């Protein structure tokens, strides 16, 4: 039996937190898993806190709220501080270290620091740090198959934004190799 994933993405509104979650959810769907995607955000569209719970499971999902993630992607400092201690032992935490200057001293989880925002800027992929982080999450946890992740990209990038497909693929690749 493969593992269930309870993934939490958290950052500011506008960082692509919900979109990363949507990609993960669709990837799970294409792997024939049960999935839920649950956003949580304040009244403001941009600048407020935004987080997104994604459950990927072989069995029907009860609570869609991820309280204790086994995979956590931190996109800003407040989210890192708020959720770092909630990651279950043995879980994985992906940290955008160009946004988050702090370190976590837990030894019971796999902590991966990626300078995602810096890498995005350097590679002319402004605004795709969330996808770089998702690539890293994929590499570290294997929450889905590579095929399904690409299918999810094809699904989630609307036809009028088709020109963004290749940059997104590139961002995923950079994340995998970072």
């Amino acid at each position, binding site marked *: 039996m493969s593992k269930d994933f309870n993934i939490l993405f958290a950052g500011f509104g506008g960082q692509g937190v919900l979109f990363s979650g*949507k990609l993960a*959810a*669709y990837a799970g*769907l294409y792997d024939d898993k*049960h*999935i*839920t*995607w*649950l*956003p949580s955000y304040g*009244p403001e569209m941009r600048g407020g806190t935004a987080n997104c719970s994604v459950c990927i499971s072989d069995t029907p*999902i*009860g*609570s*869609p*709220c991820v*309280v204790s993630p086994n995979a956590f992607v931190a996109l800003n400092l407040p989210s890192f501080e708020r959720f770092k201690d909630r990651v279950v032992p043995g879980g994985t935490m992906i940290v955008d270290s160009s946004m988050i200057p702090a370190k976590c001293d837990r030894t019971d989880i796999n902590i991966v620091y990626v300078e995602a925002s810096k890498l995005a800027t350097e590679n002319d992929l402004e605004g795709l740090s969330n996808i770089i982080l998702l690539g890293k999450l994929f590499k570290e946890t294997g929450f889905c198959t590579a095929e399904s992740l690409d299918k999810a990209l094809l699904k989630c990038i609307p036809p009028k934004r088709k020109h963004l497909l290749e940059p997104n693929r590139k961002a995923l690749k950079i994340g995998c190799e970072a």
Partner: protein
Amino acid sequence: MEDKFLMKGNEALAEAAIQAGCRHFFGYPITPQTELAAYMAKRMPQVDGTYLQAESEIAAANMVLGAAGSGVRAMTSSSSPGISLKTEAISYMAACDIPALIVNVQRGGPGLGGIQPSQADYWQATRATGHGDFQILVYAPATIQEMVDLVGVAFDKGDQYRIPAMILADGMLGQMMEPVKLPEAKANKIIDKPWACCGHHNKRPHNILNSLLLSPKELEDLIVQRYKRYDIIKENEQKWDEYLIDDADIVVVAYGASSRISHTAVDMAREKGIKAGLLRPITLWPFPVKAFETLKETAKAFISCEMSMGQMVDDVKLAVECKKPVSFVGRTGGKIPTPNEVLDKIIEVGGCC
């Protein structure tokens, strides 16, 4: 379109209504239901339907009253404070025996409350969606697929019994995405409505839909007749779902979002060797009292889990005829209980029985 795809609850409700033959939507934006109205604004013109953003919730609900009175499938949607404004028109619909769909994607109350998920409109939905002696059908979906399925049921049963129907959802279900499979469009299967005010063309006597009856006898007779219909509904339309209740000592009763939390909590309790089960009402009115017939003898205790201060507890007590203790666990004001909080209650109650 693929067989299965992801949809937000709010959008799934809207698309399901279109698939069920609804071509008239009247609404007014409010968080956390706005995606439903936005989806309708986009979709209704594509299917030659009417999407109208009214000047207020009161106007929108009265437009539903008028449209549904002409026999078409009409609906409105809102969230808690907006539903309060619609209750006047819902009472008039009930008084005229007009079927229509009202969706409540609940948020925290009272007053303007908050914008986070809540189930604090249980009393309003099941006791008083307006003044006067009346009930409406109330369906409480727990998954996005069930939201889709129950929209069709709510329209069909509303038409069959000539009664307004409500989908009582909450901000969590409205905002979350899950895989859904949409039903086949069934617009052509809508039953005839010989009572509808849709123009008599000099071929039949004109129909009247009116709620004003100044003769107490006439009004009483009409209400008594209506309550006979309610009895038939109570007999035939109770719906619920059961999970691990056959050998359960402790039965958690929960609907909608809190039933999902409870489902996880029941699994955790079972892992600890506690015989817990989940009884999930799908209809809140009629409340599924039949589900408790054997359970009230076999189970040792009941826990009502809700995102309110315990509004469903009384219904559970009535259903178990107070033969077993009924306790409450939950959060309110926009907080969602965690599975661990529900588990703690199961353990606490389990220790007493």
